[in-house]
């Protein structure tokens, strides 16, 4: 079928197995590294992370896509060791979570420079790690409207995706019109883009998931587990049943099973924020898949959602 860049090198698509397509080993806003209240020793980071990845592996998880962009605490040598010691494929991102996480050097950069940065990280490697990015992250800055910088990043991502064949994932699907326009202008087919976070508590009613899907875009229900039922839910939490019903509607009566991706957006060991207690990537196995089965979803459909769709999406198309 093809290949995918993981942090330990390219692998055949057929070896990816079940894919958690939007997760984080550890995410922190740029600058959070200056605040020692968040610091963790390497021992603590491994202690928080390895058991989660090992459980993911034992549950049958194959591939963990880290959606942490440039400047957000990406640590490729660490990811490589985690992958090697747990047997989980880890796919790293180039790109930015949003313009508001791009530091000054990139915030001032041209579309051409940003594209060169992404292409380098996909074809040569990230920093001096030798690990190549397998996906490009882009996103909408806080405030709900795409900023000029967000748009430059989207355009650069479209060019890099076209040239290298990797896919693009977005942080937020709100204000999607300019994004779709940019991808169109750059000639990137929308099935190479997953518009993410259509399901969270803050943005679900502002995200035109069916409209984007009708144009051919892929849709990410990727904040599963951030629930108002949690003891200390984050502001983007949503009642569990609301999200599940939204998802079932989208793949059922609305007919977009072929374009859906699902994930939990959990941090194994958050870097610059407390994280959300009790929420891990393994929500997929411990809660989400059982919920789907209880709702009558068959095994073939579950395979479509967690294996076939993300594999097709992640596979280099060039």
């Amino acid at each position, binding site marked *: 079928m093809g290949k995918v860049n993981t942090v330990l090198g390219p692998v055949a698509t057929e070896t990816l197995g079940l894919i958690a397509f939007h997760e984080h080993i550890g995410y*922190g*806003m*740029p*600058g*959070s*590294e*200056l*605040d*020692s209240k*968040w*610091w*963790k020793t390497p021992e603590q980071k491994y202690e928080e992370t390895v058991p989660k990845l090992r459980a993911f592996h034992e549950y049958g998880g194959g591939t963990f896509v880290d959606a942490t962009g*440039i*400047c957000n605490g990406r640590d490729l040598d660490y990811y490589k060791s985690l992958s090697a010691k747990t047997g989980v494929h880890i796919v790293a991102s180039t790109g930015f979570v949003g313009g*508001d*996480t*791009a*530091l*000054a*050097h*990139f*915030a001032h950069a041209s579309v051409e420079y940003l594209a*060169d*940065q992404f292409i*380098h*990280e996909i074809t*040569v490697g990230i*920093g001096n790690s030798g690990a190549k990015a397998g996906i490009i992250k882009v996103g909408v*800055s*806080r*405030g709900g409207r795409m900023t000029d910088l967000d748009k430059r990043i989207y355009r650069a991502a479209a060019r890099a995706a076209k040239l290298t064949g990797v896919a693009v994932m977005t942080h937020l699907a709100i204000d999607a019109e300019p994004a779709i326009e940019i991808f169109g202008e750059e000639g990137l087919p929308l099935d190479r883009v997953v518009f993410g976070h259509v399901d969270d508590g*803050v943005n679900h009613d502002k995200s035109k998931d069916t409209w984007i899907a009708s144009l051919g875009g892929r849709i990410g229900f990727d904040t599963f587990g951030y629930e108002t039922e949690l003891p200390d839910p*984050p*502001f*983007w939490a949503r009642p569990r049943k609301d999200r599940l019903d939204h998802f079932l509607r989208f793949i059922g009566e609305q007919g977009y099973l072929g374009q859906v991706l699902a994930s939990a957006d959990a941090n194994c060991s958050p*870097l*610059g*924020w407390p994280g959300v207690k009790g929420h891990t990537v393994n929500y997929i196995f411990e809660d989400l898949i059982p919920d789907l089965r209880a709702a009558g979803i068959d095994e073939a459909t579950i395979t479509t959602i967690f294996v076939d769709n993300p594999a097709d999406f992640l596979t280099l198309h060039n």
Partner: protein
Amino acid sequence: MADAHAHLSAAVNTVLGTVPADSLGVVAIHEALLSVLPGAQYAYDITLDQAKIFDTLASKLRAFKAAGGGTVVDNTGMFHGRDLPLLESLARATGVNIIASTGMGPEENLGGYFLTPQTNPPTPWPADKFADLLAQEITDGMVIPRLERRAPAGLVITEADAHGITPTEVSLFQGSARAALRTGVALSVRWGTDAHAELAHVLGEGLESNRVIVANLDRADAVAEGVPATVAAKGAYVALDHVGQNDGSYIDDAARVTLVTELIAAGHADRILLSSNAIGVAAGLTPVTLPYEFVLTEFVPALRAAGVSDADVQQILVDNPRDVLTVRGGKA
């Protein structure tokens, strides 16, 4: 100075720890050693060759020392390439005192952690949070991100946007002033469009004017409006810190000489600071390749030729920086 005893106990924070204030010698107070535009460390086309950086900076520091220099203050703050193990090694290898700074600015150089935090709404940091973060760099030591703390910072720096101070920068200025007040370390502010109004933000926190340096006061627009003299009259230090840079937005060295003589004549010799804003090694920005000793080797002869006395030169290059860099009793 009359109060010799106070001098014996007076101390300055360097990257190798506290040193007596009288041991600083000639101070280059507004310079940069390694200066990295935030984010440039992740750029695909920028390589920070540690060995080469060390050699470049060591030879520049040795030249400074050979010309009579004693201390370089690195003005890059905490998020612009500050590399503490590098600075410590350079100080040990060259014998030049290196003073590192804490602080950040302008807003466009801050990380999203401070500007769009993961709260709803994403309200930028208030002054008291900046104050805690910066004061901790003095009370507990400067950070090597996510690793450890080293020696206390010797100066707090901040900067306003060139198009006018932003609301977040007002918080940052106030927080920087509170950190200076709390710890006894001085504060250096790079002004944006209105030096007095921006100075007022830090003085409004109760920081005494003699604990504040206003940087970039040799900018042509400031000089045209007489701002250096009025800032000095307020009791703050006036940094004419682009000596050797004659590029249009700043006055040239001939005009700087005139300005210095005017300030001395007006009784402000004890408020003048001279420096070049040289950048030893730059990443993601244009280097300013002036030698750190430029003030000593090129500008001081011009001052003397203009009639400035040895005592005034000593005051400006040694005594003033010593006085401002001396850590005062903080109000913890």
